[in-house]
């Protein structure tokens, strides 16, 4: 193996990253400690105000809390919906298997705005879900499903479910079927074998799938914006408004760095966890 030409081959990619990723993200750090005066703009000097407000002001704390709760709920929902599907796809001997897997991939490849748009049509006041609920006599009047937690939960669960299923398929496929059979032969019930053998062995997949969905959920912009509107904010839509509406770039930079720190911390912790359990995440 030669080493000199290695860096030459890496140069185009590293140069691209340096110019259009490392420098831009790095420069948010100095911006985030600049004072901002309304109608004047960014001024010289130093202030930690954008960070202290973010961590003490109840308006921001509510948005941060909401983002995290949404991340947890969406992760739980995708796990619940997705595990049986992944189990089925990992174990089925059907010749349709590959095409069913592609059917899981399809929504993933379909334009995100288009998928979210479908949910607007479904969840609106006079949308299909409300029509169905009323026709079945389950509710008297239309239920509010847009611009609130329910709308974001449903939309984001739909958007990120394929990621969870695909990660879990990989994890469940790696479990030899013999281990389950052995548990059954040794007298375990199907439920017992599943709970004590299959489920724990798929834990690394559950962990990495959950981290992935959680990180994607708290990072998502398009779906929360379209289903939450300008009033029901999460961290990413807050950053969006800070930069494009309020033009307070220092505050927006501080929010961006906090969101990034949360994402990176999670990935770091999950990496440590996975290494400790001897699994590859």
């Amino acid at each position, binding site marked *: *193996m*030669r*080493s000199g*030409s*290695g860096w*030459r*081959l*890496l140069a*185009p*990619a*590293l140069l*691209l*990253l340096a110019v*259009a*990723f490392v420098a*831009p*993200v790095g*420069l*948010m750090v100095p911006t985030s400690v600049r004072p901002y005066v309304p109608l004047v703009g960014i001024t010289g000097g130093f202030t930690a105000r954008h960070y202290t407000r973010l961590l003490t002001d109840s308006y921001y704390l509510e948005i941060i809390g909401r983002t995290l709760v949404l991340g947890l709920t969406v992760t739980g929902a995708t796990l619940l*919906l997705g595990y*049986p*599907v992944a*189990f*089925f796809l990992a174990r089925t001997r059907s010749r349709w298997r*590959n095409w069913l897997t*592609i059917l899981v*991939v*399809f*929504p993933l*490849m*379909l*334009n*995100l*705005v*288009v*998928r979210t*748009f*479908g949910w607007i*049509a*479904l969840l*609106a006041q006079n949308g*299909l879900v409300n029509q169905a609920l009323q026709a079945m006599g389950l509710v008297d009047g239309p239920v509010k499903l847009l611009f609130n937690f329910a709308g974001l939960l449903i939309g984001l669960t*739909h958007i990120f*479910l394929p990621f969870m299923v695909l990660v879990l398929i990989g994890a469940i496929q790696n479990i030899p079927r013999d281990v389950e059979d052995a548990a059954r032969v040794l007298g375990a019930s199907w439920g017992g074998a599943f709970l004590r053998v299959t489920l724990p062995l798929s834990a690394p997949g559950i962990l990495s799938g959950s981290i992935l969905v959680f*990180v994607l959920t*708290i*990072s998502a912009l*398009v779906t929360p914006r*379209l289903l939450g509107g300008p009033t029901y904010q999460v961290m*990413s839509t807050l*950053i*969006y408004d800070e*930069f*494009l509406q309020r033009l307070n*770039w220092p505050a*927006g*930079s501080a929010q*961006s760095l906090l969101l*990034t720190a949360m*994402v990176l911390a999670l990935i770091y912790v999950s990496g440590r966890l996975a290494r400790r359990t001897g699994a590859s995440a």
Partner: protein
Amino acid sequence: MTAASVRTWLLRAWVTLVFGFLMLPVVVIALASFSRTSYLTVPPKGLTLAWFAKVLGDAEYVHAIVFSLLLALMATAGSVGAGVAASYALIRRRVAGAAGVAALLNAPLVFPGVVVGVALLQFYAMVHLNGTRLGLALAHMVITVPYVVRAVTASLQGIDPEIEHAARVLGASGPVAFFTVTLPLIRPGVVAGALFSFIVSFDNVPVSIFLLGAGQMTLPVKIFTAIEYGVDPSIAAISTMLIVLTGLGLAVAERWIGFHRFV
């Protein structure tokens, strides 16, 4: 019925329900795009192709489609070139700190899209790249290159390096050996990486929306802003076209390279 068959039946029912949930918005959009009404309704009231004609006759939509396609092609060409070279270096050459380099190449995928978007908005304003096509193309290359690296390194790891060595021993130069021996062997990975790149670029909103200059508009940002202004069946029509094209593209990719292996 035995317990096992009840279990199988329950599992299948659950799987069917979840697939129904996954496909529900897609089906609703497709149906709503044929409605004669000026509002979204399912099942469609009357059948018409007028909304499709309206979209295809709308200069703004046509411009956005062409702009998005050109941008995605440029981004894909750039990220495949840089990504294949980088993957080859990481797998076949001894590079000090290879793990760190690999992590850096993957970073744009890990960082929230909105953060990459606003960071570039500020940086481009400083270096006067704001509103330029070059700036937009570089941004799209950065967010697509991780997909190329991932697919191509996976392919390279499955290939015996001795095959390329053999070509070198038989007298082929380094580039000739790479292009005639290794590249054909990793073609599925390169194709998958290019497909991912194209789709990721063509779909992107969180980065594009901060960088588009005057007279520039990508298709997803156009649809995004159209929805914020108000919903009508022409949005469903353009969405239906994307659904059909995505479905066809995916079916072709599956037959061609077994696309599901790369996801």
